[in-house]
């Protein structure tokens, strides 16, 4: 048993070091450089923070605002839409059906991301069946005018990331288990009270996991915004991509990529801090109750 099995992880270490850490390190390095001319993509002989200043142009700022709007609202919508489903699956649905229901959530999740999004392009298209159907029953005067707007991107991201919210929430609600909820009800708590005071606090790790699982990839989304958003639905991911693609300005693109990562991390830290501040009064109240009781 004294075999050096630590060594088994070496291939994975090396692989990820060469093809994950090194490339990202290179991008960070590029972000301090500049674009030397029309044909060059990057040069690093003069180092500066100028690309970061350049990246914070009004275009970037507008796109950043849009991305944050879609990211925060999309995550909240996923939570609001997904939580009842996860709760229903874990608590109310017949246990024998739960495997099937989970499979039903997982099929869209594992279906090609691009294809699912194309499905929405077809649905939301002004000459699609939804548009003509809504006009036929008189709900709309003209064809649907939502494709290539922020609204379309929002629908797309909520759709695309919803399974990532439902799955961890399901696992969390499932873990809470019936005995605790029944105990709460036997002690006279109403359903709502049981849900708020027993189920939600115990499911909190799952809720946090779901929010992070949705928010992080959503902020970096490239496909949904490209397929469903037009000029109005631009997201930072596209801005980064266009600097590496059409604009051939790797230095500026690198600075934008680094900022994207920093923004995601910063938003998470800020959100955690706000949640902590909100929870402070409740913490104190609980402590008071406990002190009184003891």
């Amino acid at each position, binding site marked *: *048993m004294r*075999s050096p*099995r*630590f*060594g*088994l*992880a070496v*291939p*994975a*270490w090396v692989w*990820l070091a060469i*093809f*994950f850490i090194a*490339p990202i390190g290179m*991008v960070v390095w590029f972000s301090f450089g500049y674009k030397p001319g029309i044909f060059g*993509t990057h040069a690093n002989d003069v180092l500066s923070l100028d690309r970061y200043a350049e990246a914070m142009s009004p275009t970037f700022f507008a796109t950043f605002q849009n991305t944050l709007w879609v990211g925060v609202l999309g995550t909240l919508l996923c939570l609001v839409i*997904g939580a*009842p*489903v996860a709760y*229903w699956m874990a608590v*109310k*649905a017949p246990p024998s059906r*739960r495997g099937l229901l*989970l499979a*039903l*959530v*997982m*099929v869209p*999740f*594992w*279906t*090609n*991301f*691009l*294809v*699912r*999004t*194309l*499905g929405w392009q*077809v*649905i939301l298209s002004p*000459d699609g069946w939804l548009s003509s159907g809504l006009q036929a029953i008189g709900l709309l005067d003209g064809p649907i005018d939502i494709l290539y707007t922020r609204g379309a991107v929002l629908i797309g991201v909520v*759709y695309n990331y*919803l399974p990532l919210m439902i799955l961890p929430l399901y*696992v969390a609600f499932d873990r809470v288990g019936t005995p605790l909820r029944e105990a709460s009800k036997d002690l006279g708590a*109403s359903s709502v009270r049981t849900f708020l005071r027993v189920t939600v606090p115990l499911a909190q790790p799952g809720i946090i996991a779901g929010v992070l*699982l949705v928010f*992080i*990839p959503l*902020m*970096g989304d490239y*496909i949904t915004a490209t397929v469903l958003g037009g000029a109005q639905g631009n997201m930072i*991911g596209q801005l*980064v*991509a266009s600097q*590496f*693609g059409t604009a051939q300005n790797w230095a500026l693109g690198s600075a934008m*990529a680094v900022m*994207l*990562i920093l923004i995601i991390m910063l938003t998470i830290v800020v959100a955690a801090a706000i949640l902590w501040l909100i929870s402070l009064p409740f913490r104190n109240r609980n402590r008071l109750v406990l002190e009184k009781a003891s």
Partner: protein
Amino acid sequence: MSDARVRRRGPGAGNTVLTIWSVLVFAFLFLPIVVIIFASFNSGRLLVAWESFSLAPFAAIVEKPVVREAVLVSLRTGLIAALFASLVGTLAGVAMARRPGKWVWWFLGLLLLVSVTPEIVDAVALLPWLVFLGQDLGMSIFNDGTVRLVIGHSLFSVAIVSYIVRARLVGLDARLEEASADLFAPPLRTFLKVTLPLAMPAVLAGFLLSFTLSLDNTVVSAFVQVSGTTPWPVYVLSSLRSGLRPEIAAVSTIMLLLTLASLALVAYVLKRAGDSASEIARTMAGG
């Protein structure tokens, strides 16, 4: 407990609302998939405008060399990337479960970083790096289309396989391997005859999930691909500008069936290995 009638009536209305809501959300989840499947039987020139029922889009897969080639590139890359990720990820997963130490936290941190980094950042980072390795350093292997795709697809897959294998082995008793060692089996023999069979359901699940992930990969592929080895999703992405044709829906429908088959296999393998529904869900959601 005393008044069952009241208790049943109270949450009853809430239950109905919950059930209806859930059914609506499931319909929402399947709506675009159903739309794409329908569109794959469209005889029209464009995917959006329905003309009449036809199987022509499916025939195009065989007839059009570009489409056929893209699908084959996807399948080939998927297989190689999944094999590679299973190999490297399994070794790492075993090491994490059986040789835990401080290093495991560093490694888990790295895997977490790999899984949360936005795909677009991976993509724009890999492109200059592969150009650097292939052209500036002259390692021509990195100019090869398949190699580039496999590298790009393997990152996330290695993380997934490592997670799954570790999760499975952590739950199993290491004494089985100690017994094997006590009975004088050399380490390699113990690994092949005891550890690997124990981990096999997780390895298989990881393999199939990696394969599916590779078929799905669009963003990284679009950046690192070399013309001539264009995988299917990148072909679709590039035809966004020129107009989506029904054969795109047809190939998507076939790919969907392939994904479904892999998922069903994953679920079957894990179920045989004794996992519960929520354990399977956790595995498939990526640990």
